[in-house]
């Protein structure tokens, strides 16, 4: 089944780019076949410029069409292909093979803490349920202004970092507190609440603080920084959570 690629590979010499073989050790799960997840190794020919996603595509297109994973834009914007690569949450489309030591088998697993549907696809519903709970939309009162809602660059800068979130769930599914029972709101929900709490145009800040002032809200954050390390957009997630905590404390005292 495997090794059909070897014969075809040498012909397209891709310019100066070096090519090498790489082994991907993928966590396979198919509930229609077995309740147990298993590891399966695939060896593919890859170029120095290839990403994990390219290798996954090669496997799916040329070796085993049953391999299941999500991807949409394939360029690090849509946040569909977050997965656990060599034990760390990353976007498959932003991770170059050469950066994760292709000499050894590269492990690829679904993100942790969310129910696996098949292979690398997880059920994102718990993640989006928390996201919906924090009301990720502008809340205002009174009449609509006849022109734009003015905001100074300084006010905009307060929440600039948290506008970058693409909802890939890399942070939430890297959080050990979330792994326990999935009841914690998770970093992504807090980041998106932060984006509105610190928006000078928004008037729902205290409602959102009230929602996150929950037993499962910001107070379950243990500042392990897993989320900050996992974020493919470089958002300072832990810092944002701490800022929400601070806002709650200044509100309470």
């Amino acid at each position, binding site marked *: 089944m495997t090794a059909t690629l070897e014969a075809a590979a040498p012909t397209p010499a891709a310019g100066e780019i070096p090519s090498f073989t790489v082994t991907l050790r993928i966590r396979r799960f198919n509930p229609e076949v077995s309740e147990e997840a298993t590891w399966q190794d695939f060896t593919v020919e890859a170029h120095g410029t290839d990403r994990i996603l390219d290798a996954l595509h090669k496997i799916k297109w040329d070796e085993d069409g049953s391999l299941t994973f999500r991807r949409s834009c394939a360029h690090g914007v849509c946040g569909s292909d977050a997965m656990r690569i060599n034990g760390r949450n990353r976007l498959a489309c932003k991770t170059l093979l050469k950066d994760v030591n292709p000499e050894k088998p590269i492990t690829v697993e679904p993100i942790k803490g969310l129910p696996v549907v098949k292979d690398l696809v997880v059920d994102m519903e*718990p993640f989006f349920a928390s996201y919906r709970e924090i009301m990720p939309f502008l809340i205002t009162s009174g009449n609509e202004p006849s022109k734009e809602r003015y905001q100074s660059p300084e006010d905009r800068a307060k929440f600039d970092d948290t506008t970058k979130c693409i909802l890939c769930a890399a942070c939430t599914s890297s959080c050990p507190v979330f792994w*326990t029972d999935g009841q914690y709101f998770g970093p992504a929900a807090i980041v998106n609440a932060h984006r509105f709490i610190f928006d000078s145009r928004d008037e729902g800040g205290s409602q959102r603080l009230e*929602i996150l*002032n*929950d*037993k499962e809200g910001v107070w379950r954050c243990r500042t392990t920084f897993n989320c900050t390390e996992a974020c493919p957009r470089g958002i300072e997630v832990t810092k944002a959570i701490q800022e929400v905590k601070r806002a709650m404390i200044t509100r309470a005292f």
Partner: protein
Amino acid sequence: MAHGTAAVAKLDSPRSPYVRRKTTRGNYELYSWVFMRASGVVLIVLIFGHLFVNLMVGDGVHAIDFGFVGGKWANPLWQVWDLLMLWLAMIHGTNGVRTIINDYATRDLTRGILKGLLLLAFAVVVVLGTLVIFTFDPCPPDAPAELLASFCTA
């Protein structure tokens, strides 16, 4: 209709819908978070003060005997100091372990049992400690005088 519900029931086990338990909002966790920071700062002063007085001042560690402890607990300052240290340390520690149980116990039953044991241990230590600090007799009768604090006359 009946067909539809049957299909849903069949799908239920592998893909059971996500349920967030009903909201547990309130300031409890906020106050507990603030308490951990505040009590931590106070405990640093209390514990290092305690260590300094017991181990560094005068003869230091060699001076500790029944009379030394009895003499300290005859003084209201040290009674309050030790009481505060006991209570703050116990609440701080218990709250910390409670947090760890919340983070690591996955099932509600395990969580409940562990927290029950924790509360029991907390109650025993705090009650016993408080009792000792307030009912301690520095000058028990029929004890050899050289073992007691200097103010014991009997």
